């Protein structure tokens, strides 16, 4: 069984990423931000990508949307969406691909709304530009969309500053699903929000996902949130995937020391207080090898003294 064959939904993956490598090419030196990353997302599946800042997870999202700008270059690998080669799309094909096939909600997307246009006008724009509806028809659909995310359609006439952060984020999600895309990419959709609002937005996304049946690529550093929402997940470190499995399996049995450190970074809400360690400063993994199947459907990059070079005295000893 290879990684791309494991998926939660149907056997036909919506998105198939193979050996993707992205480099940031500078004048004097280049950095590999994403290094031979492979994963696939099935129909109706929620796939989580976890890792901390700089590990390459947003670069992957931007590669899928073909939003990478210089100096970033896709140096190798393939991305196919519903059998089509995303990397070979022409400008016109990309225009249709974005928003209609794949939509993306960015981090602090609520600040991406145009402050001088009403919410209604901004949603109408999507329909008239991408779907070619009349203005009247677009307005009707815009009202329906807001109702879908439980915002009063009367708010179509509101400007973004008249809505709370949570409502704005909801409106942005409504806009993302406006054209019924088959894949929704969520890049840290709730980091700028409070816990209470965060939970409501996540519940909303789950509900929409069940209703409309799209697949989700969910990017966050919050492991607890990810395990709650995702069917399957991958943990990234330094541009490499170090572990991938069903979210519940990763939660119950994290195998890579980095995954364990990420899990240990979130103290539990119940049970006795147990000292946690997290990842000590200065510990680094180098030359992460390809994944191997450690248990059925549970892939882990081999680690240990030989496989991943740890850049400190030793992992246990440095934990303080």
């Amino acid at each position, binding site marked *: 069984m290879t990684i791309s064959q494991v998926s939660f939904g149907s056997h036909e993956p919506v998105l198939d990423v193979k050996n993707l490598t992205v480099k940031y090419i500078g004048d004097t030196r280049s950095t590999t931000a994403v290094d031979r990353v492979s994963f696939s997302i099935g129909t109706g599946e929620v796939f989580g990508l976890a890792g*901390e*800042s700089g590990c390459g997870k947003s670069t992957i999202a931007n590669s899928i949307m073909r939003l990478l700008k210089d100096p970033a270059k896709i140096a190798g690998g393939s991305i196919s969406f519903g059998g089509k080669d995303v990397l070979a799309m022409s400008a016109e094909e990309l225009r249709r691909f974005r928003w209609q096939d794949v939509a993306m909600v960015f981090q602090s997307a609520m600040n991406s709304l145009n402050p001088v246009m009403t919410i209604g006008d901004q949603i109408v724009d999507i329909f008239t530009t991408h779907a070619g509806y009349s203005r009247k028809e677009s307005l009707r659909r815009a009202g329906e969309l807001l109702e879908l995310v*439980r*915002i*009063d359609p009367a708010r179509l006439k509101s400007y973004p500053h008249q809505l*709370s*952060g*949570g*409502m704005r984020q909801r409106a942005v999600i409504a806009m993302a699903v406006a054209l019924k895309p088959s894949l929704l990419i969520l890049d840290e959709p709730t980091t700028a929000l*409070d*816990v*209470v*609002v*965060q*939970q*409501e937005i*996540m*519940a909303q996304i789950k509900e929409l996902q069940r209703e409309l049946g799209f697949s989700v690529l969910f990017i966050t*550093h*919050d*492991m*607890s*949130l990810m*395990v*709650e929402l995702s069917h399957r997940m991958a943990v990234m470190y330094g541009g490499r995937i170090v572990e991938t499995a069903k*979210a*519940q399996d990763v*939660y119950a049995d994290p195998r890579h020391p*980095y995954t364990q*450190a*990420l899990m*240990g*970074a*979130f*103290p*539990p*809400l*119940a049970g*006795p*207080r*147990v*000292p*946690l*360690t*997290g*990842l*000590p*400063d200065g510990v680094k993994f180098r030359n992460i090898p390809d994944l191997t199947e450690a248990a059925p459907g549970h892939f882990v990059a081999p680690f240990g003294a030989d496989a991943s070079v740890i850049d400190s005295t030793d992992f246990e000893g440095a934990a*303080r």
Partner: protein
Amino acid sequence: MSHSLMTPSAASKTSTPALEIRGLGKSFPIGGLFSRDSVRALHDTDLTIGKGEIVALVGESGSGKSTLARCVARLEKPSSGEILIDGVDVLKRDRFQASRAFRSQLQMVFQDPFGSLNPAHRIEHFLRRSLAIHGKGGSEEQARHRLEELMTTVGLEADMLNSYPHELSGGQRQRVAIARALAVEPQVILADEPTSMLDVSVRIGVLNLMRKLRDEQGISMLYITHDLASARYLADRTAVMFAGELVEEGESLDLLANPAHPYTQLLVSAVPDPARAGSYDPVRRAELRQAVMASTHCMFDGDPDQACSAEEPVRHRVGDPENRHWVRCHLYRPWAAAGGHALASEPIQPGHPASTAQDEASA
């Protein structure tokens, strides 16, 4: 690794508290130059931190927890109330601005370790300056020794003293910020979201460092956060703030296991926890929101120690006195305008009693 996890410091119950806040209030004027309107960010807040005790202050953004920190740090002038450090009212002692004596008793650690260290200086400069200003340096040799000692205490290599901030990771910078606070040998450290800008994998390390400082040096701390799980992990006691007022306080484990106030219940139920699948219940959520702003009954009705009151923020005791757990009477109506901000995310549900109150409040 020594952790005194289960024992809140015994000294805190007997001696003079390290920090005591009495009736602290702060209003900010809003509107134009001639406007008399003001927004009440903090109202009549009492909070005590014993010697060697870590107290967490939790709440959503806009609940007033940072205003409290800024007032206590004297970066903001409180509108009313008293701040006692070691039993001395510092607002009376230094009327106009914080004195150096005050700064040597209380130090702050800020949220953003990328903004709080001047990029033009080496790490040594920050620590040396703290020592020099507060006259703790002594001879060159003593100062050098102290610098190295500080770096060791916060878990950094002494040769990092020659590094510039940009050469350090976020976690390392926050450790430098803590070392800078420690240089002054303060009694109280005020930490305002010290881990929220750090990468997740190093957050725990900073929390462990804070606990170690308490255990080994007896420093008291006010830990301000919106992360309930980390409050539970680090703090002996936790206080919950809503709309500029405290609604509940108690021993951290007990408070989070038995939250008595609807607002605390709301916060606890919102924390993602994979062990508690399917935790979100929109109906229950709407009930809690309603109860936060306008509860019609109090679960502590008939409390022999404190009669319920809708006007006064009466405190009822919850459970074993050992846990020092109290909750504000549910009947007390919070300032209506405040709720609009803190609970503004409510989805509009036509016909629900909470939605009308919500609209008025947010208008």
